């Protein structure tokens, strides 16, 4: 069965902290994605990666960076967390252009 896991379901951090969100997939997929979900805005793409050590900016990359050192793992980094980064973060992976598999999400609160 397809599996995408995220390191935390809920996270509370303080303004200015460096935050790491981890995502692991067990399907040997080439492509991995980080989305941010906010009410009324749907899902917006932050970054994606189509191969190890490769990354591309999505629609809202400001304030974020990513790392993909191994095929199965894709990390989202908030260099200096701010309150406007309080949100639900969803990771996804795919091997085809027409289906993505999502993790359960991490609800991040920055105080």
């Amino acid at each position, binding site marked *: 069965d397809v599996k995408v896991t995220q390191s935390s379901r809920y996270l509370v951090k303080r303004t200015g902290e460096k935050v790491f969100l981890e995502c692991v997939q067990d399907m040997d997929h080439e*492509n991995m994605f980080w989305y941010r979900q906010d009410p009324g805005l*749907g*899902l917006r793409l932050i970054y994606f990666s189509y191969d190890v050590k490769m990354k591309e900016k999505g629609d809202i990359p400001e304030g974020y960076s990513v790392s993909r050192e191994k095929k199965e793992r894709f990390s989202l980094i908030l260099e200096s967390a701010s309150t406007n980064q309080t949100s639900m973060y969803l990771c996804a992976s795919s091997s085809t*252009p*027409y*289906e*993505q598999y999502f993790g*359960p999400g991490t609800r991040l609160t920055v105080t």
Partner: protein
Amino acid sequence: AQSVTQLDSQVPVFEEAPVELRCNYSSSVSVYLFWYVQYPNQGLQLLLKYLSGSTLVKGINGFEAEFNKSQTSFHLRKPSVHISDTAEYFCAVTRQRSGGYNKLIFGAGTRLAVHP
């Protein structure tokens, strides 16, 4: 570039009634279309997808959607809803391509609330 508009942010409905969740898209190229469902406190799960062929697509949990190219719509329907269908539903689009990676463009979501 592609975009997606979900015409209703919330849809209340009584149990066993039919429901339609509306989705319109815009694109200058051929696209694949999707509906995802998100149950409370969970990630997104694929309900159904249109890639090619028949314009009526059947998905899981009794849902179906119809692709209408002339109206650029992909509305989701279910003839009789259950309490367990209460969730948020997202329409999404990506451009057709033969390989490589895909960027999904999502609508803002429609919250379906099924009442007893």
